């Protein structure tokens, strides 16, 4: 296969995956969009109505948090299974294996993009106004994707070797849902634990996105550097592990 064809292949696999995921349900793609909104409704009722939390722009804060988390959880889950689910293809034909992981996470990314559009619709109905700094949104989204891809690369090859990675990852995601400031304000967290929370780049991603969207501000220079290095480090580790373990993947599947 010629090199410039790989992009086309990537696109076709991602498109097929996207089509297949919501196939058979009448609402089709709508499900992809409804899921975070439903989660939003539940969490909003619990924390805003029942527990009477009061914080400015809580709806948007919560919605953005859920959408980012949703992308992270679904993207890595799809990435984790990507190699196994394409096993037959891997055993029969050669192309760079990384395309499979990229394609399956791209599927989640497409949903994420639609979600962000919905968020912007909600945003336009709020008291906040659009500002020029929001032009940076795509950069944040790309960083989010690199983060998801880094985790997926790492998880996908390990899943082939150790079939219980998926269970472990599910537990970690569950824990991550509560340890990441998705539905609670980060100000609730005692200062001394903040460092540990920001160890996870997903916390940084979430907080800095909110800083951008809701506070119309950029993260501090150290914060940004810290976050960037975290993302790149995870991607680098994922990539290297993938490169090493995917060499003889066709024999292991």
């Amino acid at each position: 296969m010629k090199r410039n064809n790989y992009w086309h292949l990537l696109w076709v696999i991602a498109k097929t995956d996207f089509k297949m995921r919501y196939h058979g349900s009448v609402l089709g793609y709508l499900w992809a969009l409804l899921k975070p909104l439903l989660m939003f409704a539940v969490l909003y009722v619990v924390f805003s109505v029942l527990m009477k939390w009061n914080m400015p722009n809580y709806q948007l804060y919560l919605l953005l948090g859920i959408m980012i988390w949703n992308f992270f959880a679904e993207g890595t889950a799809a990435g984790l299974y990507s190699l196994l689910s394409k096993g037959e293809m891997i055993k029969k034909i050669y192309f760079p294996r990384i395309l499979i992981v990229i394609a399956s996470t791209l599927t989640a990314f497409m949903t994420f993009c639609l979600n962000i559009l919905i968020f912007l619709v909600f945003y336009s109905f709020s008291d906040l106004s659009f500002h020029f700094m929001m032009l940076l949104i795509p950069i944040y989204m790309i960083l989010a994707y690199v983060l998801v891809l880094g985790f997926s690369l790492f998880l996908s090859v390990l899943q082939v070797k150790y079939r219980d990675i998926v269970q472990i990852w599910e537990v970690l995601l569950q824990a991550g849902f509560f340890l990441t400031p998705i539905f609670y304000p980060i100000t609730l967290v005692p200062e001394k634990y903040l460092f540990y929370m920001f160890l996870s780049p997903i916390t940084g991603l979430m907080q800095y996105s909110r800083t951008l969207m809701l506070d119309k501000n950029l993260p501090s220079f150290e914060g940004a550097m810290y976050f960037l290095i975290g993302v790149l480090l995870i991607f680098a580790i994922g990539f290297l592990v993938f490169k090493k373990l995917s060499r003889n993947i066709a024999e292991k599947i």
Partner: protein
Amino acid sequence: MVIIEVKNLYKEFVIPHERRDSIRENFVNIFRPNTYETFNAIEDLSFSVNEGEFFGIIGRNGSGKSTLLKMLAGIYPSTKGSVKVKGSIAPFLELGVGFNHELSGRENVFLNGTILGLTQKQLEQKYDEIVKFAELERFMDQKLKNYSSGMQVRLAFSVAIQAGADVFLLDEVLAVGDTEFQRKCFEKFRELKAKKQTIVFVTHDLGAVRQFCDKVLYVKGGKAMAIGTPNEVIDKYIYEDRLEEYKAEEANQEVSSPVVNSGAKEVEITKVEYLDRHGKNNEKFISGDPITLRIHYKKNKNVTSVVCGIAIYKDDGAYMYGTNSFLQERKVNLKKSGYVDFKTDSLNLLSGNYAMTVAFHSDEGKPYDWRDKEFYFTVINSSRDDGFIKLDFKFNS
């Protein structure tokens, strides 16, 4: 120009005695290291394929043919040694890679075609041709799961043959399917061969090897046993196990077997056809059917005496039957060119692949044209009897 170069290739598979594929199992057994053995699927294999060559790979089951093909395709990495391929490769280890049953036939053409390396533009151009070749015009918008398996194979093959790569790797899977489909496959092979397409071809069908291949590699236990022209290699493949026996026999007996000498072509065999009960050309027969062997010849020189004979061998080399015009006390009248027939009303063989020797020689046995086991045909059993010969014993009590 050398297009594929394999040098001192090794492939070692590690087979653990206990399969541990979860973190839990590895953790529980942390102080009990797993033991394993290694298996050499490919050992010190070297060969090269030139551009435009039809290269065959033969060998018994488990000899490493498919592993080798997967290594050529880049699916398995090598343990040691190198595989160098110049240009692009289209591997057909299986038809319809990536076919998705929930998608329509049309979508699958684009999906499968892309995986095989075709561009969107090429696929759009060739789409009509693909559909026409598969004879599925009416079904392209239906989901693949509603296709019969035959329709799926047809569609997959039609896409596959459109793949434009420098090298095609064909596994024997291409030769499955009904006779009609096989005929189509072979027709396409002939076309590709005429177009000087470089092809690497793995098969058990020795007839196809002899018919198509320019060069053949015989693999056994992951090692190359022979590389060369089809005739040499197939001989080696068929007789190899018996070679030792033959040598011992030859040592005991001074009687030498008839010299296999292809002759000076005073009378030349130009073509051998098998005609089935409908008088049509065929290579497959049902046991008990009538069969005509039509031997086309050309007389290059006047000869005083001519005998025409045939001999039939089982594919493991066992001599099954032989006859000639002399034994039947018939005189052979040769024209400048034409054909002679051997005809039987009932082919009393059960199932199997058979090789046939056809020869013209003089009364004294001097060969004019002697084609040793160059022709193949297949017999399909019509009853449930076992063995090779149709003797039709009927049970009675």
